[in-house]
């Protein structure tokens, strides 16, 4: 039997009732006290994070002072709207649905992205679906370069390494989705006198897994300090429907279904949670490897990847930088 001092997955255990109370107190303080606003708008994706945030906002501010916004587009997964609506209903919050495909079309989101994909998969065309993928970090020091996977209407798949230009173009075009959604959230927030509540968990916030001025924009981010494992525990405590709690995390950004670790994270979220927690606590890789189910070398690789993502996504966290200070304005 393992000694009690051995590092394990229970390191991420939280007192859910106390955590929920603290977040609700923080939300009231920030929304009413600091921002002087009446309520909160939450974009609902049907995922665990936005569902927990809408539940916490309803508890903190009152369900009648929270608006859920469903923002499907032609490529988002069919159950996103259904689960998003379920999350709102389960906590007594009104939800409105805004179809964003026409806006994305007008911006050229799909057309610009498809043109970029065609530079590496020339046959990519109408009826095809796509996603970006990264090779696994486990077991290799190889650089992980993005490839695009295209699926023809007959189900045939083609994978090609992206050029830097194509990668940037695909990401830039796809980011219209997050930015259009945020624009709509702020429309509703402005008309109601509400704040916009962002939904990143700690992994996403720490590792820069968001679009600047897209899903990265918000007035308050109530669960940014919680590891994803803890968000799941909180969802259970808040009695969110099982259909939401059992849905695997997805980016819901590309037309082919894509897991978050395929696109961004090095390893599955629960393993990364553990490594991030241990890395923050200064624990050596050898102490974490058994609980993470990884070799010591792979934990070292995850640690290096965590640090590299922090370095490279630092600009995403920065607001506009002033060349000269304006001391009369406290923008923090």
């Amino acid at each position, binding site marked *: 039997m393992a000694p009690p001092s051995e590092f394990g997955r229970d390191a991420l255990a939280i007192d859910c009732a106390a955590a929920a109370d603290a977040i609700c107190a923080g939300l009231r303080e920030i929304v009413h006290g600091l921002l002087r606003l009446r309520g909160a708008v939450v974009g609902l994706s049907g995922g665990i994070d936005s569902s927990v945030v809408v539940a916490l906002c309803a508890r903190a501010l009152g369900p009648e002072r929270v608006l859920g916004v469903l923002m499907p587009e032609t490529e988002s997964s069919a159950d996103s709207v259904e689960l998003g609506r379920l999350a709102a209903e389960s906590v007594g919050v009104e939800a409105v649905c805004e179809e964003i495909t026409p806006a994305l079309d007008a911006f050229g989101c799909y057309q610009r992205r498809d043109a970029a994909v065609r530079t590496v998969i020339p046959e990519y065309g109408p009826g095809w679906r796509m996603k970006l993928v990264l090779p696994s970090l486990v077991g290799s020091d190889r*650089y992980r370069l993005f490839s695009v996977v295209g699926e023809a209407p007959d189900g045939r798949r083609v994978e090609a390494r992206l*050029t830097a230009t194509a*990668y940037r173009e695909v990401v830039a075009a796809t980011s219209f989705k997050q930015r259009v959604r945020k624009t709509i959230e702020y429309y509703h927030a402005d008309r109601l006198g509400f704040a916009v509540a962002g939904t990143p968990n700690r992994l996403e916030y720490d590792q820069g897994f968001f679009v600047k001025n897209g899903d990265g924009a918000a007035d308050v981010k109530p669960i940014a300090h919680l590891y994803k494992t803890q968000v799941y525990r909180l969802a259970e405590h808040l009695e969110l429907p099982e259909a939401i709690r059992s849905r695997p995390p997805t980016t819901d950004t590309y037309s082919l279904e894509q897991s978050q670790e395929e696109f961004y994270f090095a390893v599955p979220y629960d393993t990364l949670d553990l490594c991030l927690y241990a890395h923050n606590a200064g624990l050596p890789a050898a102490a974490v490897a058994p609980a993470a189910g990884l070799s010591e070398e792979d934990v070292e690789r995850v640690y290096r990847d965590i640090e*590299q993502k922090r*370095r*490279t996504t630092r600009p995403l966290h920065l607001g506009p930088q002033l060349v000269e200070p304006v001391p009369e304005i406290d923008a923090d």
Partner: protein
Amino acid sequence: MPPIAQPEIEEEIRRFLFESFPLGDDPAGLANGDSLVEAGLIDSTGVLELVGHLESTYGIAVADDELIPENLDTIGYIVGFVHRKLTGAAAGNGSAL
């Protein structure tokens, strides 16, 4: 055509890195053994950019299993890698570029 000499490759690589990434005002300030990724000079998109540059400039193909720090993480490694690819290609088909 004989393969390009290593000093010429180094000069060209330095020029490319200096023009493409924020290396400061002095391209010579970057030592041949400095890690480009660890120093935060290039990220994973930067590696994509570097690989694309090597393929188009030197007419080489960089295979997935060659995408390792020992080939690409320092100027010295990159120069050695390109030189090996060029001389290997020259030995194989008689045309380096």
